[in-house]
């Protein structure tokens, strides 16, 4: 049966750009999950909350620098400042979490660190909810409006900025992992911690760096999320966290390029994919079904390709 798309070209190109935008956020967050899983074989359940803390820190920084009164070139500086503040907040939170909640449990039964991570996640989420009286905060609306493009193909400045800076951050991370001494240590620990320590790698230090790198990416994602969606709240970390984990699994958990690709696949699947399903006769899935699509995708991938859609090298069977 030939499927004739009923909606216009500009609708689909918009959906595609939206998919890339959310996909960028998922990819940035997914990197933290995949790297921690790579070295510790543990799901860092609190990573979504690290992202949330970054977003709030960035909000605080933007408001402190003038909030809605910012204009002209000051906006660029303020956003850069907010990103740096958010990264530092996420990184410090993550280092503290690793030290207090995860490190004492290394070598404990498999479930213990996971439960501990769930505890951290609940703690941080409700701490922020209580501090904000469970109300949402609104990022200053300072990003220049307008769009680039011609005819039906358009991309707003904020989307372009979001996608470009995510790609830049991921390129930077990839260079660190592939080119530096630290990156080599991380890859060695991921391969085999005992052997790495025999070769003179300080495993504890390397693990801390893994948390730092992942949290830095989550902090950037927090500010980008705030600038794009504007509304942030204490419970905002949960769904993106789960989605990002899904993205990491999609790309083959432990694999860094896989997490990036998985983020984009998931972002596109839940925007473009949902609209494509709506093209089928008798199907009308509202916006809420996005989450169902993401979870269904996760379950399907785990069943049929547990090593991820881009299975690489000898990843151990899930």
């Amino acid at each position, binding site marked *: 049966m030939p499927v004739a798309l009923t909606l216009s070209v500009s609708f689909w190109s918009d959906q595609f750009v939206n998919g890339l935008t959310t996909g960028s956020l998922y990819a940035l967050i997914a990197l933290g999950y995949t790297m921690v899983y790579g070295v510790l074989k543990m799901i860092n359940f609190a990573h979504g909350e690290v992202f949330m803390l970054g977003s709030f820190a960035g909000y605080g920084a933007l408001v402190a620098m003038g909030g809605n009164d910012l204009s002209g070139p000051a906006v660029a500086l303020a956003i850069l400042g907010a990103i740096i503040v958010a990264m530092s907040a996420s990184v410090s939170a993550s280092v503290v979490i690793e030290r*207090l909640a995860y490190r004492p*449990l290394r070598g404990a039964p498999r479930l213990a660190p996971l439960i501990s991570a769930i505890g951290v996640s609940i703690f941080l989420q409700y701490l922020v909810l209580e501090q904000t009286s469970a109300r949402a905060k609104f990022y200053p609306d300072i990003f220049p409006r307008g769009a680039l493009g011609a005819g039906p193909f358009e991309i707003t400045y904020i989307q372009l900025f979001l996608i470009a800076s995510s790609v830049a951050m991921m390129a930077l991370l990839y260079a660190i992992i592939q080119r530096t001494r630290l990156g080599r240590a991380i890859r060695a620990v991921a391969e085999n911690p005992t052997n790495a320590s025999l070769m003179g790698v300080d495993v504890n230090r390397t693990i801390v760096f893994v948390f730092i790198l992942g949290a830095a990416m989550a902090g950037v994602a927090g500010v980008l999320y705030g600038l794009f969606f504007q509304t942030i709240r204490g419970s905002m970390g949960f769904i993106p966290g789960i989605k990002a984990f899904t993205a990491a699994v999609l790309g083959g958990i432990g694999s860094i390029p896989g997490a990036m690709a998985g983020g984009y696949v998931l972002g596109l699947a839940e925007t473009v994919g949902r609209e494509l399903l709506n093209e089928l006769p008798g199907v009308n899935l509202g916006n*809420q079904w996005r989450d169902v699509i993401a979870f269904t995708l996760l379950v399907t991938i785990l069943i049929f390709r547990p090593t991820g859609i881009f299975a690489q090298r000898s990843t151990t069977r899930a």
Partner: protein
Amino acid sequence: MPDRSAPPPPWTRTLARFRWPLFVAFTCLLPFLLTDVWVQMLVFVALFIVLGLGLNVVVGFAGLLDLGYVAFFAAGAYTMGLLTSPGSPIDAGLDFWLILPIGILIASIVGLLLGLPVLPLRGDYLAIVTLGFGEIIRLFLINRDDLTRGSQGLSAIPRPDLFGYRIDSFTEWFYFVVAAAVVVGFCTSRLRDSRIGRAWEAIREDEDVAAAMGVNTTKYKLLAFASGAAIGGLGGVIYAAFIGFISPAAFSLQVSIDVLAIVIIGGMGSTPGVILGSLILIGVPRILQFRETSDFLANLGWLRDALNGLISALDAATPGSLGRLPPAETWGAQLADDTRFIIFGALLVIIMVVRPSGLWPSSRRRLEFAHDDTPPPAPVTAP
């Protein structure tokens, strides 16, 4: 270590043998000693003991981390709701006692359907898939409003009759739910001590070794999953009949995490642990909201004044200013509301770090976590 070779005095042995009948007998006296709000609180505690015992089979016995236990609870509750609520499109007006087995069956089928594809996977993946599944069920209940009436929920679910007598008051419900908990507790402890229980234990300790010893790991994991789901379904049917109204909001991730925390904080695999965990996590937050508690806390006005005095002194000494403490009689409610989850999260971390085996670990677990140099006696795991 205490000297285990000396025989304990005979009366302690008698006490140990009859500890469960004695405990149940004591429990049955409670409604005579307490007011209605307390008994209502205890109904919830008993209901969560049922759920905790069910999840204990999955997490404690077989070592499978299930973060979507609410899905089975919801399956049971919605079976009851859909088949009896006048608002449901498929209201059949069936009797509670007929729905009870149907609800248990449906919940275990849901468990099997979910478990079949994901159980061959590693533990952490199982955690995420079950978590996602719990959310899918909730979203499904909200969005398929033609069937479930969405977030409006199903109301006027009838209460059960027992031999022509309607179970109505909190005291009657208390006895009913406690009876359910006793039956479930008896079944799970028999399961634990059976060949099946030993297979679960072997899988929990080391799946590869268990498989090498001839344990069909997938089959036994599936069995654990289905048993846990069946008990969750039982809890759901009882819950729907007790509350009389169900809506998707009652089946959030929080329920899964509450039940999991009951199992973990109490001590994985331990029945007294589940009871203790449920009293702490379900009972205490409710007690904090009672009028008795605020009446009692009202006596602490002097403490509030003293602490506020300290805070004002601090304010005077440093730049910036802190808020003052609210009136003492509201402390309980405040603690129960916002701060509950903050404490709860911190408690999970602290218990994992300090007492990874839980507050009241099962005897086997206590051996495993014992910090002495002599290796624990090798458990007999092969069935």
